[in-house]
């Protein structure tokens, strides 16, 4: 009894009383802040009801969603199948791809040699040595023999007369006419050279077309179009040369008229002087 009495009295005095006070405060706070204890196990009836709810959810919601998804996938499948059919049977049928390649091969076999042979038909017609030499150089398609060309041209069409033999103005105009004629003939030699290279480009494009895929044909078409632009530029060069030549012919004819006017004036002057 004595022990119990002393034990109880220790809670009411000194450090024991403080400890008890702190402890009670903490216990009160934990009791207020701490979560309530969870309820324990449910009953079997509740489990069956939950299972029924899950079954209903699976059947009515998940099942329905899966059915919808399945339907959508079938639609996508049909779309892709239609797309495959469109590409393989309408847009890029293998048979027509092969047919197009075969067409290129047949055109090469049928026409390339023929057109080359026609282009190579000789049209040289000169009979005497100097014209024959000039004709040969004029038509050889070389741009490396212009010096020889100048010489042969002047041998056939005569060199510029010496200054003592011709009016200075006429001499210059003859030189200009010769020069533009020679310029044009040289430009034509260069053009013949370019024609051969252009034909080579066409052949390269055509050879590739015989093996092309539908997706690469645009490269070849583009290369062909660019080549055609370059060809147009070359044709313009030739037309410019022709313009210079025709202009020189007209200018020369006109200069003769001017000379005639000069000479007529001089004649009138001389006649007037004579009868004075």
């Amino acid at each position, binding site marked *: 009894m004595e022990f119990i009495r002393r034990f109880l009295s220790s809670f009411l005095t000194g450090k024991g009383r403080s400890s*008890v006070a702190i402890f009670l405060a903490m216990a009160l706070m934990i*009791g207020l802040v701490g979560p309530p*204890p969870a309820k324990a196990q449910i009953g*079997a*009836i509740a*489990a*069956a009801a939950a*299972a029924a709810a*899950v*079954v209903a959810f*699976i*059947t009515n919601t*998940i099942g329905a969603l*899966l*059915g919808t*998804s*399945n339907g959508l996938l079938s639609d*996508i*499948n049909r779309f*892709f199948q239609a797309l*495959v059919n469109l*590409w393989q049977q309408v847009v*890029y049928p293998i048979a027509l*791809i092969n047919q197009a390649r075969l067409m290129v091969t047949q055109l090469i076999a049928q026409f390339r040699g023929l057109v080359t042979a026609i282009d190579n038909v000789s049209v040289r017609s000169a009979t005497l040595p100097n014209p024959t030499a000039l004709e040969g150089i004029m038509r050889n398609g070389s741009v490396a023999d212009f010096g020889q060309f100048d010489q042969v041209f002047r041998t056939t069409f005569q060199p510029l007369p010496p200054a003592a033999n011709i009016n200075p103005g006429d*001499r210059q105009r003859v030189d200009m006419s*010769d020069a533009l004629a020679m310029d044009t003939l*040289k430009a034509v030699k260069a053009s013949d050279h*370019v024609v051969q290279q252009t034909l080579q*480009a066409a052949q390269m*494009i055509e050879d590739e077309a015989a*093996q*092309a*895929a539908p*997706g*690469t044909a*645009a*490269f070849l078409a*583009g*290369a062909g*179009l660019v080549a*055609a*632009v*370059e060809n*147009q*530029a*070359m*044709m*313009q*060069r030739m*037309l410019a040369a022709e*313009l210079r030549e*025709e202009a020189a012919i*007209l*200018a020369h004819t*006109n200069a003769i*008229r*001017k*000379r005639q*006017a000069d000479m007529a*004036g001089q004649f009138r002057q001389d006649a007037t002087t004579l009868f004075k």
Partner: protein
Amino acid sequence: MDPKWRLLHVLWEHRTKFLVLMLIMSLVAPPPARAQFGIDWGAIVAAINSIGSAITNTIAPALRAINGALGTLSNLVSSIQAFFTNIVYPQAAINRAQGLVGAVQGLYTQIQATSRVNVSSATLANPQQLEQVLLSRNPMNVPNVTANYQTLYQAVPTPRAASPQTRDLVDMNDAAAQAAMKRAIAIDAIADTEMQAADRINTELAQAAPGTAPMIEAEAAAWLVRANAYTQSALGDVVRLRAVTLANSGAQLKFNSNNAAQIRQNALDSMK
């Protein structure tokens, strides 16, 4: 000391700590759960079975159907990929086509060099000056044509030296000839520009993808149309010049016939 009294003594010595520990444990420790009693195993198994049946009968067939559809879709996508990779856009053919574009460009680089080869041939000073201007391919030189032309081919005769009709004819012929020479310079410059544009397009084409090649092709087509127009324009200049030349020949016949008529008249007058 009796061990029992000694334990009590120790407890008494640490009574505060002991008490605090006991109280903390009693508050923190979870309350004893109420244990299940009377478990209905049959109901629980039936519930689980019903869920299993629902999964088996509803979800599994749907998933199998989706799986089948996805398999079909996968096959379709694979066949599309194979078709485009092997038939429409084979990499080897793409590489070859790009290589071809480069090869054609190389060829046209040579062609351009050939087209710019020097063809000048005049030997005297004045013809050389005019020829140099005419072959310059530089439109800035167009204004120089007139002076060089007149130096070489002379100016229009003075009114004292020629009749007004002759002067008109001479001036018109000079104008046509000079205009043609100026146009020749401009056309050469246009041709140079077209070749530069073609070069640029070709460079782009050699780097293009199959999907962008038609875009470059469209640009090339536009340039081709433009080049055709310039060629047509140049042809028009040639035709115009030839028409003037033809008119000049006709005018000469007309002059001759007028002169003959005048001579006849003069002869008749002298007989009077």
